């Protein structure tokens, strides 16, 4: 029969709408402002006593709090607050009460009920323009990294030629080439095989001129890309570690493009502090492990940095062999026996120093220290009796590893005896991170205060509401019962859009809200197309049931064409756009997809339910069309 859906189609539409309702629901629960307490080191466990000290401090200050909880492994604790205004004050109080060793972060604790969490339903994440916070874009100076590598090649090649007693001139030629010049062809061939052995990644090229035999060693594009990748991933790792120190509940550190890194810190207001911590430099020290009879004045005790060896320590000599500035590269690899190791390259001076220190100390152990600048908070009393926190810097030195020296080391050596490839790559990353990292600069910075964020949400919600109301009124007045169907479908569409965004973990931004508003306006277009067709069919004298049927049929291909082209534009927007533009593109694309479902299938189901399978003389699709009013 015409205009009757089989039962499964009704059930499908109903099912999708119910699922949408379920997954959109978490967004109805407003989150509580909260403080999140984390230990600065992973060994730091947060117990009831710690939590009590925090809550006592809040009570003393008269700040309302509730719903305290510690998660299962004792890493995090959460204290919910009644008002958002008190959040900053509460943070100051609690960090004062707990002292150093704890990170107190501002947080918004979701209030999603457990039964929704159980099915994986989560509220949408809010972008920085809605939640408030800082957005940084940093650029890694990759040219500097490439330049450093060239200098390393230059000095390594010179040293190798000197050691082999090959006479020749070595120069840096441009930013990608080491040029070698010899008096005889034999010398050049000897040099060529040495360079090829030591640096197989270089591209070698012989150039003959009168009385001069030259050799060009060029860095290939592939190895330049590798260096850039190293420099960026090394910076990413260091930035991640440092961001954790800032105590932000949901930070984002992400590579963007070739050499950029985006850092987003929701809830942070103090950009100066954030930049100080992000921009600091870590370093390395190589020192011999002190012998058992070394006098106390000549040795120092250092704890291991890794969690597995928490508490373990070694005594190292006070003398430093070399620091991280001498490390030009570190790479995780495997030896002949398939055991994981880390290959370390030093610059020429570092190689000499390392050789001098190790040749007489074979079979002793050498410790690698990782040094980070950290800050302790001290509270200074002001003349007026108030206290101000003062950050006092100090260097934290922890032991990465302490392997046995197997032979005299030079500019290139390896650390073996590692437990797993994972450990090797972590060590390599730490070594690179500790080495003088490619410098980073801030190329973009955006801060949104919390009040503006809240206002943006309020305005955004209001414009969606008003826009929706206007469309609803117009559609119902213009298309009557059919308009009502379209409006129901439109509401379902909004809900599906929100549900879908929550489900895939998309971030809602202000332009994203604009995308939703635009979707409301444009989503009815599909219905308008269908209804206009039905009206035409009626005008041409078709029976109502037939008009509904052909109206839907004919409009579908137009709707598809129109929506696919809009989708193309949205995808381009996503591909080339940055931050906020991406948010707009995401909502627009999802909106187009969900609107096709609701406007075509959803509206059809409703119309079929109302009109399907009945004898009709009249359709309520606007007052100007009556059955028989044929053109």
């Amino acid at each position: 029969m015409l205009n009757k859906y089989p039962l499964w189609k009704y059930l499908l539409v109903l099912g999708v709408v119910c699922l949408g309702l379920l997954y959109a629901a978490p967004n109805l629960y407003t989150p509580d402002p909260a403080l999140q307490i984390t230990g600065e080191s992973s060994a730091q466990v947060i117990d009831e006593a710690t939590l009590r000290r925090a809550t006592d401090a809040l009570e003393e200050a008269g700040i309302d709090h509730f719903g305290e909880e510690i998660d299962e492994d004792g890493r995090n604790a959460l204290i919910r607050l009644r008002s958002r205004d008190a959040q900053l004050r509460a943070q100051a109080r609690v960090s004062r009460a707990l002292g150093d060793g704890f990170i107190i972060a501002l947080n918004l604790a979701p209030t999603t009920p457990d039964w929704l969490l159980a099915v994986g339903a989560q509220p949408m994440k809010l972008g920085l323009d809605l939640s408030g916070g800082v957005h940084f874009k940093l650029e890694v100076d990759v040219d500097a990294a490439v330049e450093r590598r060239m200098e390393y090649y230059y000095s390594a090649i010179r040293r190798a030629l000197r050691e082999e007693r090959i006479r020749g001139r070595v120069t840096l030629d441009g930013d990608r080439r080491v040029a070698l010049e010899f008096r005889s062809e034999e010398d050049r061939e000897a040099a060529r095989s040495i360079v090829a052995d030591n640096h197989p990644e270089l591209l070698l090229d012989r150039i003959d001129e009168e009385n001069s035999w030259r050799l060009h060693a060029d860095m290939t594009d592939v190895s330049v890309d590798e260096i850039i990748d190293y420099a960026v991933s090394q910076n990413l790792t260091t930035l991640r570690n440092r961001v954790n120190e800032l105590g932000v509940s949901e930070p984002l550190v992400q590579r963007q493009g070739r050499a950029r890194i985006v850092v987003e810190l929701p809830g942070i207001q103090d950009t100066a502090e954030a930049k100080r911590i992000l921009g600091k430099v870590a370093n390395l020290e190589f020192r011999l492990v002190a012998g058992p009879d070394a006098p106390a004045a000549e040795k120092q005790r250092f704890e291991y940095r890794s969690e597995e060896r928490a508490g373990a320590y070694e005594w190292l000599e006070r003398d430093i062999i070399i620091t991280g500035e001498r490390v030009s590269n570190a790479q995780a690899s495997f030896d002949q026996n398939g055991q994981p190791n880390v290959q370390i390259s030093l610059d020429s001076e570092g190689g000499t120093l390392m050789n001098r220190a190790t040749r007489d100390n074979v079979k002793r152990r050498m410790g690698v220290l990782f040094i980070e600048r950290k800050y302790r908070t001290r509270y200074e009393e002001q003349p007026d009796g108030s206290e101000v926190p003062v950050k006092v810097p100090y260097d934290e030195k922890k032991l990465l590893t302490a392997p046995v020296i197997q032979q005299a080391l030079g500019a290139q050596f390896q650390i073996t005896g590692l437990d797993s490839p994972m450990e090797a790559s972590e060590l390599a990353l730490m070594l690179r991170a500790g080495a003088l990292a490619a410098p980073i600069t801030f190329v973009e910075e955006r801060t949104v205060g919390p009040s503006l964020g809240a206002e943006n949400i309020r305005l955004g919600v209001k414009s969606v509401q008003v826009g929706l109301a206007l469309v609803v009124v117009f559609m119902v007045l213009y298309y009557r019962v059919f308009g009502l169907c379209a409006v129901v479908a439109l509401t379902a569409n909004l809900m599906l859009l929100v549900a879908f965004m929550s489900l895939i973990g998309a971030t809602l931004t202000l332009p994203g809200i604009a995308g939703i508003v635009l979707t409301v306006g444009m989503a009815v277009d599909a219905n308008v197309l269908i209804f206009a067709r039905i009206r035409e069919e009626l005008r041409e004298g078709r029976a109502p049931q037939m008009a509904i049927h052909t109206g839907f049929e004919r409009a579908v291909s137009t709707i598809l064409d129109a929506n696919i082209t809009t989708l193309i534009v949205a995808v381009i927007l996503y591909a080339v756009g940055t931050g906020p533009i991406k948010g707009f593109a995401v909502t627009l694309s999802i909106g187009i997809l969900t609107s096709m479902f609701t406007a075509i299938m959803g509206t059809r189901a409703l119309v079929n339910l109302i009109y399907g399978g009945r004898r009709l003389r009249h359709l309520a699709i606007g007052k100007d069309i009556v059955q028989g009013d044929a053109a």
Partner: protein
Amino acid sequence: MKVFNFMGWRLAAVVFSAVLLVTSIGSLAVRQLEWGLDFTGGTLVEVHYGDSADLDAIRNTLDSGGYEGATVVSFGTDQDVLIRLPSGFTDADGAAVLAVLSDASDAAVELRRTEFIGPQVGEELREQGGLAMLLALGLVMLYIGFRFQLKFAVGAVAALVHDVLITLGFFSVLGLEFDLTVLAALLAVIGYSLNDTIVVADRIRENFRKLRRAEPVEVINISLSETLGRTLVTSLTTLLVLISLAVFGGEMIHGFAVALIVGVVIGTYSSIYVSATTLLLMGVSKEDLMIPVKEGAEQDDLVP
């Protein structure tokens, strides 16, 4: 139904479009665009004062604080102040400006937002924006050429270029700020205008096949009249939500809403006149659209 003689007015429409286009291009050449911070690079600080803010006092404070050449305007309300520093200041200055203002003011100064954009980022963004626009136009032309016919693709792209140029011209003539959200709006205009154009093109194609004996002008008039209701209703609903966005959405999204409103109005006009007139100019005829095999099949695809 009544068939309007749209194409009878096409000369007037050409003149109208030409005037708008010449004004737009002229203004873009002479006045150019009021590029926003996203594109020029520089520093921006938005602060909120407890009472209404004295802009002159703020200017003086900034001048004596070493921030000469800062533009100070109120933003939305008289309590919100927007300060723009010319490029050349560093990323540290946003926070410093706030400190200077807080010291000088008795009332509390609340930070709303700061933005710092490095000059190279801004430049890249401009390139990327232009590229995105060209890419969008190119891909869309390809799709329409594939789904319809080359003449339709040229007509659609003519309409899109027309809409984008006039919207840009609007921003240039009125000196409105062109920032990243406006660029997004412009791309959305492309999407919207296209949507409209395709609906009309779809009908023109259908009528060319149905009304075999009619002249092209007649076919286009009939098609435009048939789709007129839908075109107007969709534009109206879209305008309704956009007006809501412009009125209630706040300052940060205002440019976006305005660009889209202009774009939608122009896009509605262009889907009626520009693409159809272009089709006629290129001498579209039913031969362009006849299916070589058999009529009436649902398979409408024609490769040009």
